[in-house]
């Protein structure tokens, strides 16, 4: 789940795209990096196995309405790798500490892929600080009989191709992905992703038992052509989380916030707007 190279690297945008900062902070013994921009209700975005990436156009758009906070998980990129980091549950508990320390309330929690798994695990334990939950191509559960690519047993090129619906976008990402300065972060992210998700592969066999405990409005945004967690996963999550809505984005792969940023942000804005009216 590596970020497309044209969309990562040093952030140079200014103006409407660049209303964010990159800083570091410590939660107990662990120092992490985070991007933050905009104003409004807090929107916490948890990235997938590919790492934090850059301030995406979809984030810049959301920052016009929300206080968008996109941390880099412990164990990834330039964040610390704490000795306690072994499981997704460790990260879910870490982000509960994070919400407490920042004293965030009414949070719109959004998680992509492995970050969606963290978000779901966090929400079954404690929804007190959440206003809504959005899972995007999320890992965490297992659906029998659905064909899924193996992102560990494949070449770098195939792994990138499998992320996207648009082959031209995939090729552009591949062409620019062999930058040597990225290698350390890529290897580190791959290693921690394996540690968290190798076995049981990309899921916790106990998570599905407790998803009914999620008491906040929940949206499931899925690429219609997600080859990692095909859209059957969205419907399986929908059956397990009371009242969850599904938004399938057509012509889109595993990373809607990257590949179809506007459609992704529009779905999220409409959903959050709807929850406010309902409230």
């Amino acid at each position, binding site marked *: 789940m590596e970020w497309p190279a044209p969309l990562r690297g040093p952030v140079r945008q200014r103006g409407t795209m660049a209303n964010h900062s990159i800083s570091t902070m410590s939660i107990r013994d662990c120092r992490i990096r985070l991007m933050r921009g905009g104003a409004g209700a807090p929107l916490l975005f948890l990235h997938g196995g590919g790492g934090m990436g850059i301030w995406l156009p979809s984030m810049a758009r959301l920052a016009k309405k929300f206080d968008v906070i996109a941390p880099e998980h412990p164990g990834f990129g330039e964040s610390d790798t704490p000795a306690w980091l072994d499981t997704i549950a460790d990260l879910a508990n870490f982000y509960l500490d994070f919400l407490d320390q920042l004293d965030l309330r009414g949070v719109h929690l959004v998680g992509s892929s492995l970050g969606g798994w963290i978000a779901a695990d966090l929400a079954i334990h404690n929804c007190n600080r959440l206003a809504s939950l959005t899972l995007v191509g999320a890992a965490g559960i297992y659906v029998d009989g659905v064909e899924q690519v193996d992102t*560990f*047993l494949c070449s770098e090129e195939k792994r990138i191709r499998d992320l996207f619906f648009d082959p031209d976008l995939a090729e552009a990402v591949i062409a620019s992905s062999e930058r040597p300065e990225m290698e350390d972060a890529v290897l580190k992210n791959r290693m921690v992703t*394996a540690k968290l998700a190798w*076995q049981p592969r990309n899921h916790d066999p106990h998570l599905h038992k407790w998803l009914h405990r999620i008491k906040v409005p929940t949206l499931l945004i899925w690429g219609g052509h997600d080859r990692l967690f095909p859209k059957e996963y969205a419907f399986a999550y929908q059956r397990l989380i009371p009242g969850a809505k599904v938004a399938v984005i057509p012509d889109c792969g595993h990373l809607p916030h990257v590949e179809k940023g506007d459609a992704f942000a529009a779905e999220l804005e409409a959903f959050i707007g709807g929850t406010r009216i309902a409230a």
Partner: protein
Amino acid sequence: MKFFNFHLMPYRHADLDAIAKNGSAWVTLSNRHYDPQKGAELYHEYLDQMELADKLGFDGVCLNEHHQTAYGMMPIPGILAGALARNVKRAKLAILGRALPLINNPLMVAEEYAILDNLTRGRLIAGFVRGIGAEYHAMGINPAHSQERYSEAHDLIVRAWTEPGPFSYAGKHYQFRYVNPWPRPYQKPHPPIWIPSQGSGSTIRWAARMRYTYCQTLSPIAAVARFFQMYRDEAEKAGYHASPDQLAWSNTIYVAETDEKAVREARPHLEALMNYFLKMPTEMLLPPGYTDPASMKRVRAAKVTGKPQSIEDVIKAGVVIVGSPNTVREKLAEYQDLAGFNTSLTKTQFGTLPDDMARANMTAIAQEILPHFRDRSPQGTRREAAE
């Protein structure tokens, strides 16, 4: 020097075209290609070869462990060791497996090895390995836990063998209310522990400190010499002088009347091993977390799993020794002196080599090579030689 007949027990009837098409003989090559009729014959053929090695005067026989692959049919080497334990009368019995991190209950290895040590009345050599990366795909074990599980399982097994039970054990990966295995090992304090590796610096350092015999797997002799020198250096740092008996080189030897005949006969079978049975993509060999990022970068840069190798390539690099008795004696003496080892773990059957040729090779090695090295130790191995 001591000679061990080292068997991989390849499924030598494998469809090489199917391997080429699949890109590897490991993990994803469908077991539809395994014919149990042929497999049953092969197990007996190979076990008979091991018994022959004992009769011919090899100092030991040596088994191995790999999973879900045509490369070797020994996922559970202890069963084959058990099948050999009563008919191999004299030779040592070495298992250069158990891949400890793959096992969810390491006490079963303590038990299995203790039984074999009793059965052989103290002729077992206990190997502890991590297993190659492909094993982690095949067995559903997290490669990022590999080092931790290895180290914890090793400590637990050695304690189970040496501390009177019952005692309790609570580790990160393994927990037991009662550790109290019956039987206890026959040898005191426990069977010799051998550590095979592809040349990991941390493994070499650890093996040297623990005074375990280090076995270098399939590598060019110059690299072997470098790794063995690292071991001797680490031993010096740990305050002792390493003996050549602590170093074992895993090789392949094929002997025929002339160099030309030996190369001609060995070629298809050795090239099948190098270019089909061993072939795997980098992501299969090195899953994320199996090794640290620095080693990972080195391997990626070297692109180890690249082009096909000819028999001439591997002879020239000193990965194997193939030739007339005279050539093999000269090369082996040269390599022994260069690298400073006193044990040769020799594959006498390799790749697709059929039974009659394997037995002829074993007999030739026993008659033409072994007697000349029986009392030979490395001569003049110096630091410079390894550089």
